[in-house]
C-alpha cells in the first residue's frame, strides 16, 4: 500500500493544546510518537469521529468524513474505522460474545456467531466467550477490546496505547497476531507507541507529534535515526560501566 489513504488538515483547540495537523497517511503501519499532551489522542479522536475539529477536513479512502466549511460530518460508526484505547471500555452487562458481536448488527445471526468465534480464536480468547468483563484480567480485557474493534472488519484501525500495562511477552504476542491479521486484509493502522524498537520491528512509518503539530513524518530508519543513535549510545555507556547495572567485577549480579 503506497498511495495515500487518509488525508487530514485540521485545527482543533482542547484546553491548552492547539492542534494544527496536516498529514497524509500511506504506510500500512504508522506509529505516532510524541510526549504526553502532544496531541496524539486528540488527533486519533478527531479521525475516529469522537471529537469534532473546529476547522478542517478529513478524507479517508476517497470519502470526505469531515469538512467543517460545508458541514460534512460522518458519525463514528459509519467511518469504517476501528478504535482501541488504553481503557478497554467493554460493556459490563454483556458477556465477551455479546461485546464482540455488538458491532455486527448488519450480519445474520449465524455469520455474526462465526465472526465472533474467529475473532476470539485469533486473540486466544475462545475460552472467555461466556465471561463478563468483571471476571477478566487486564490483558484479557484488551484482547476482547481488540476483537470487538476488529470484528466489523474496519478499513483503518486506530490504536491509542492499548497495550499499556501489559507485560512485554503478552504485548509482543498480541502485536504479532494483530499485524499479521491486518496485513492479510490490507487494513492500515495508526498506532500510538513510545517504543523505538517496536517501530523498527514493524517496519513502520513514523509520525512525530509535539505541541499539537507534526514535527516529522517518514520511514522509522530516517525519522528515528537520531533517537536510535542516542539510545545505542546510552546502552553502550551503561554496558561499559558494569557497576551502573549493579554487576560485580566478575559479572555476577
Amino acid at each position: 500500500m503506497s498511495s495515500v489513504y487518509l488525508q487530514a488538515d485540521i485545527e482543533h483547540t482542547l484546553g491548552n493544546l492547539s492542534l494544527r495537523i496536516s498529514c497524509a497517511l500511506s504506510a500500512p503501519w504508522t506509529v505516532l510518537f510524541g510526549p504526553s499532551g502532544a496531541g496524539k489522542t486528540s488527533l486519533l479522536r478527531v479521525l475516529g469521529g469522537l471529537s469534532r475539529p473546529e476547522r478542517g477536513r478529513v478524507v479517508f479512502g476517497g470519502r470526505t468524513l469531515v469538512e467543517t466549511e460545508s458541514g460534512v460530518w460522518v458519525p463514528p460508526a459509519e467511518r469504517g474505522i476501528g478504535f482501541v484505547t488504553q481503557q478497554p471500555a467493554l460493556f459490563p452487562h454483556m458477556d465477551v460474545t455479546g461485546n464482540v458481536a455488538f458491532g455486527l448488527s448488519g450480519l445474520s445471526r449465524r455469520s455474526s456467531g462465526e465472526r465472533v468465534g474467529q475473532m476470539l480464536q485469533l486473540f486466544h480468547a475462545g475460552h472467555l466467550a461466556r465471561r463478563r468483563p468483571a471476571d477478566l484480567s487486564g490483558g484479557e480485557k484488551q484482547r476482547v477490546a481488540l476483537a470487538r474493534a476488529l470484528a466489523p472488519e474496519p478499513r483503518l484501525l486506530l490504536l491509542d496505547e492499548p497495550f499499556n500495562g501489559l507485560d512485554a511477552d503478552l504485548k509482543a504476542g498480541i502485536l504479532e497476531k494483530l499485524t499479521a491479521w491486518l496485513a492479510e486484509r490490507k487494513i492500515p493502522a495508526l498506532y500510538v507507541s513510545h517504543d523505538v524498537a517496536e517501530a523498527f520491528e514493524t517496519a513502520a512509518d513514523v509520525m512525530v507529534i509535539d505541541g499539537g503539530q507534526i514535527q516529522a513524518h517518514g520511514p522509522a530508519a530516517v525519522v528515528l535515526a537520531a533517537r536510535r543513535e542516542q539510545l545505542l549510545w546510552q546502552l553502550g555507556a551503561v554496558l561499559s560501566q558494569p557497576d551502573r547495572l549493579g554487576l560485580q567485577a566478575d559479572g555476577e549480579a
Partner: protein
Amino acid sequence: MDRQAIFLTFRLATLTTLILLAIAVPLGYWLAYGQARWKPLVEAAVALPLVLPPTVLGFYLLVLMGPRTAAGRALTVVFGHPLAFSFAGLLVGSVIFSLPFAVQPMTSGFRSVDRGILEAAELLSARPGRILARVLLPLVRPFLLTAAVLAFTHTVGEFGVVLMIGGGIPGVTKTLSISIYDQVQDFAYAQANHTALLLLSLSFLALLIIYGRRGRAGV
C-alpha cells in the same frame, strides 16, 4: 377504607409513572449528553416543581386549563371537555408535578455511565436507539427503577395540586390523600388512620426497594 379512592389513586399513579418514564428517558438523556446553550433553562423548568408550593402550581394549571386561556380552549377541543376537575386534568397535573422525580434520577443515571463505554458503542453502532436499548438502559436500570418508584409514590401522596385542579370529586378526582383530609374533616379518625397507614406502608416499601437495589448494585 375508600376503595373508589384507592382504585383511582393507583390508576392515576400508574398512568403518571408510565407517561413520566416515556418522557424522562429521552429528556434525561438529552440533559446528560446534550450541549445546547439553553439546557440550564430546561433543567430549571424541570426542577421547578421541587421548590414551588403545590398550590401555586395547581393554581396556574387550573387557570391554564380553564376556558379563559387559549391553551385551555385548545385542550378542551382535544379532550372534548375542559380539563379542570377531570381525571385527564389530574393526570396532566401529576405528570408536571412529578416530572423532576423521574427526570433527575434518569439524568444522574446517564451521567454515571462511563464516557468510554458510550464512545465504544458510538464507534460500533450508528443507531442511537440501539445504543440506548442495548447499552445505556441496561446500565441505568437501577436509576430507572428509582425514577419509577419516586414518580409513583409522589403521585400517590400528592395533595395540593390534586385538590386545586381536581377538587376531590368522588370517583373522578378524589385520591387517597384527599380522602384522608375529608375523613379527618368528618372526625372519622379510624378510617383516616387506615388510609394513612396504607400510604405510610406503601412509601416505606418503595424506599426499601430503592435502597435495597442500590445496596446490591452499589449505586
